[in-house]
């Protein structure tokens, strides 16, 4: 039984990659829509190949489709070629499985993985024929619900959503859907449903809250418009990840996607409190999955998908306590079945080098380090527990085993950074090159002499990090710093062995505005969309001049959101959300960073961040507490 496609043959034959729009992939779920109560459209607002690579959606798709009364389908942003045709011919956006219009669904869920997808949210709503603003939606429009990392500061896009689900999706959807079913049965109003949802916990319903501002533009008060809904919304997390479900029949795309492999999530959270890293705070406390279960699931996923490659997913995979047991198992099992293993970037030591050596050609593959900053002083400021000895020592060990390619990742624009700190990037790269020439005699330089690639990205302060108070650099600062980096590399003895890459600065500024933005930005996002901005995450479609003109026309001061260092007592737009980590603890971290004082990781010492309130993971292990 084949479904009737939403797009005509004529359209499909005239667009790039029609496979993006036809569904029918291995393991996609088809249900009888007459026999399901709730239809859920799950959307990643970017192109298919990006969206299909996201495991969060696969987890929720699997979970929701295990409910008999729900049919969850997938939706992605139509690429620009189809976008144009859909507007010209007034074709409504559809879900892949049934090819039915999204507008007929009960829910439209959008995962918010990066700020630069905001105009694509409007694209998806617009092409679906759903009013862009929550307040304009009718009773029969789908409930638009957002989730994912950007929902931790949902304010810039609050006007476009009915609900934000704060935290991990596994915990509260069942209850939310039950409330919805009740509402559908009793024909209560959309507003009444949203009020009930707001009481559930983990749910932020923007239309039920309001913000007052001070004269200087900062927030005076964030208040609830009713007294029966919570003023603080705590993130939801899975407290028993050991026994949590994981999809063993993920959808397998026909076309090559960013992640064209079986992905196994081994843990959530991170013990390392890098002060720039938002994910490291949002997913606290670190929780591991059960290693025996992971082995079983990995083999099931491979059997159910036919993938020829498997990879492990987590933050800082080396910290997973059973990483050696798991990788050894996979190498053994997979080599028998001609399946490749894509190893995560493990800490460089004897074990990891030996393991890498088993699955990659050492002469071709490269070694990756993320020192993030060039100087030790700066690495202490950002609490990156990686020393020069770790890097040079690790690289030397690898050189002795035949490696000759090294990749290094740095950030520019970190709080308190000086010209000296930046120049250390070149010095560090040169030291690695020197180590190579000292260690590897000419006749053993098989892969050609050492090749070092240094890449820098621009630092953007994010909510729920120690640097949420920090001033972000301007575009000119960024470019100047990239120039200093380049000059410092060119000044090195081995500069010919070092390649330097840096990012565009324009888009970083916009990301900085949204990351710490407030509700007053929604009209600008709407206006930029109306002036043709979509796919801002794609360099070739990013229209910086349009964005800057919109901010100017709407009287929005970019510097207020980016370069301004926040006062310690300022109320942030996201303060009503708790990711478990206390603001007071983050403030302490911010002050410690200014002194260059490091904080130990969760395994060594508990620093009392507040994540203990979830009573799970590392927080339940006996580690000494910080005084």
């Amino acid at each position, binding site marked *: *039984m*084949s*479904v009737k*496609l939403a797009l*005509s*043959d*004529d359209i*499909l*034959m005239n667009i790039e990659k*029609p*496979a993006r729009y*036809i*569904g*029918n*992939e*291995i393991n996609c779920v088809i249900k009888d829509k007459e026999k399901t109560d709730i239809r859920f459209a799950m959307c990643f607002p970017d192109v298919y190949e990006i969206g299909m690579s996201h495991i969060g959606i696969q987890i929720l798709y699997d979970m929701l489709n295990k409910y008999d009364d729900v049919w969850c389908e997938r939706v992605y942003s139509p690429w620009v070629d189809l976008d144009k045709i859909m507007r010209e011919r007034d074709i409504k956006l559809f879900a892949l499985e049934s090819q039915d219009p999204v507008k007929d669904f009960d829910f439209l869920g959008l995962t918010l993985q990066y700020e630069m997808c905001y105009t694509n949210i409007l694209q998806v709503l617009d092409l679906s024929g759903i009013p862009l603003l929550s307040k304009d939606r009718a009773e029969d429009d789908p409930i638009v619900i957002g989730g994912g990392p950007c929902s931790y500061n949902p304010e810039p896009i609050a006007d476009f959503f009915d609900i934000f689900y704060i935290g991990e999706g596994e915990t509260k959807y069942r209850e939310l859907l039950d409330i919805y079913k009740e509402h559908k049965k009793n024909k209560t109003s959309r507003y009444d449903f949203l009020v009930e949802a707001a009481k559930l916990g983990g749910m932020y319903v923007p239309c039920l809250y309001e913000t007052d501002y001070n004269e200087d533009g900062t927030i005076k008060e964030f208040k609830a418009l009713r007294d029966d809904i919570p003023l603080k919304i705590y993130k939801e997390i899975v407290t028993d990840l050991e026994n949590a479900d994981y999809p063993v029949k993920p959808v*397998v795309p*026909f*076309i*090559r996607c960013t992640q064209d492999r079986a992905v196994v999530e081994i843990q959530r959270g991170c013990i390392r409190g890098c002060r720039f890293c938002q994910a490291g705070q949002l997913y606290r406390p670190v929780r591991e999955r059960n290693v025996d279960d992971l082995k079983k699931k990995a083999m099931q996923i*491979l*059997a*159910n*998908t*036919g*993938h*020829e490659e498997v990879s492990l997913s987590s933050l800082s995979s080396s910290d997973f306590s059973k990483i050696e047991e798991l990788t050894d198992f996979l190498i053994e099992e997979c080599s028998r*079945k*001609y*399946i*490749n293993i894509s190893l995560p970037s493990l800490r460089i030591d004897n074990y990891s080098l030996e393991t890498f050596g088993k699955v990659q*050609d050492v002469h071709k593959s490269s070694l990756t380090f993320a020192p993030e900053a060039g100087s030790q002083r700066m690495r202490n400021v950002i609490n990156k527990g990686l020393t020069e000895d770790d890097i040079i020592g690790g690289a030397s060990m690898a050189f002795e085993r035949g490696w000759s390619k090294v990749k290094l990742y740095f950030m520019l624009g970190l709080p308190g950074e000086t010209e000296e700190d930046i120049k250390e990037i070149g010095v560090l790269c040169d030291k690695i090159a020197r180590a190579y020439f000292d260690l590897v005699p000419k006749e053993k330089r098989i892969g050609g002499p050492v090749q070092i690639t240094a890449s820098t990205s621009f630092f953007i302060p994010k909510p729920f990090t120690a640097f949420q108070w920090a001033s972000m650099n301007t575009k000119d600062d960024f470019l100047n710093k990239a120039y200093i980096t380049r000059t410092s590399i060119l000044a090195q003895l081995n500069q010919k062995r070092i390649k330097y890459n840096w990012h565009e600065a324009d888009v970083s500024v916009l990301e900085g505005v949204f990351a710490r933005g407030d509700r007053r930005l929604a009209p600008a996002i709407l206006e930029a969309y109306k002036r043709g901005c979509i796919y801002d995450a794609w360099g070739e479609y990013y229209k910086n001049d349009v964005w800057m003109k919109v901010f100017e026309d709407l009287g929005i001061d970019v510097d207020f959101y980016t370069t301004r260092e926040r006062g310690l007592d300022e109320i942030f737009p996201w303060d009503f959300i708790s990711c478990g980590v206390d603001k007071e603890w983050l403030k302490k971290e911010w002050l410690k960073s200014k002194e260059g004082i490091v904080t130990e990781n969760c395994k060594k010492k508990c620093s009392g961040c507040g994540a203990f309130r979830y009573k799970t993971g590392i927080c339940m292990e006996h580690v000494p507490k910080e005084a």
Partner: protein
Amino acid sequence: MKVRIKFAKDGVMKYIGHLDIMRYFQKCMRKADVDIAYSSGFSPHQIMSFASPLGVGVESNGEYFDIELNSGNAKSVMDSLNAVMVDGMRILSVTKLPDGVKNAMASIAAARYTVIMKEGFEQENTDDSKVDDFLKREHINIIKQTKKNEIEFDLRPHIYEFSYDKNAYKMLIDASSSGNIKPLSVIEEYARFCGKEITPTKYQIIREEFYTYDDNNEFVPLEALGEDF
């Protein structure tokens, strides 16, 4: 052992290109647990070769690829593959090739096609009376666009059978590496012969079968060379 697999591809699957179909089958081999042989070397790959790529938009009832199989029998390979097929893909036959049989790509001599109007389009040329006259011509010269220039090319020797009955064109044409022609070229020429112009994008091409020569120099389907196992 060398095994030939015949499959059909239609419905929404016609929008999946050749490279993705190859990747799809590689996944299906693993998913169905077919004991396919792998090449040796640092990155082993499945030993699998396709007869001919099928263009995006074209449907087929007669596509082929050959694999090297370590163990198994025809029925189990066919059943286990069919159990993992998506809508629009079907395995039609699995046969073992005797030693010395050329691979699928090298064996191709001719292909049979059906060409119909796509849904929603009206028939552009309804004249079925000129088929015999069309085929009686000694030469059917067309202008063929090559990379560098245009050359005159005679279609006639490459058309083995051709018929037109109200709604469908049917033809058996040369598909060998040296002389293959496109089904739409034949239809365009036939329409021109009838004094009509056609719009190629309105036509749905369905490849029905690939043929090779048997010992008596007769056309036989590619699967006929194989045997059950």
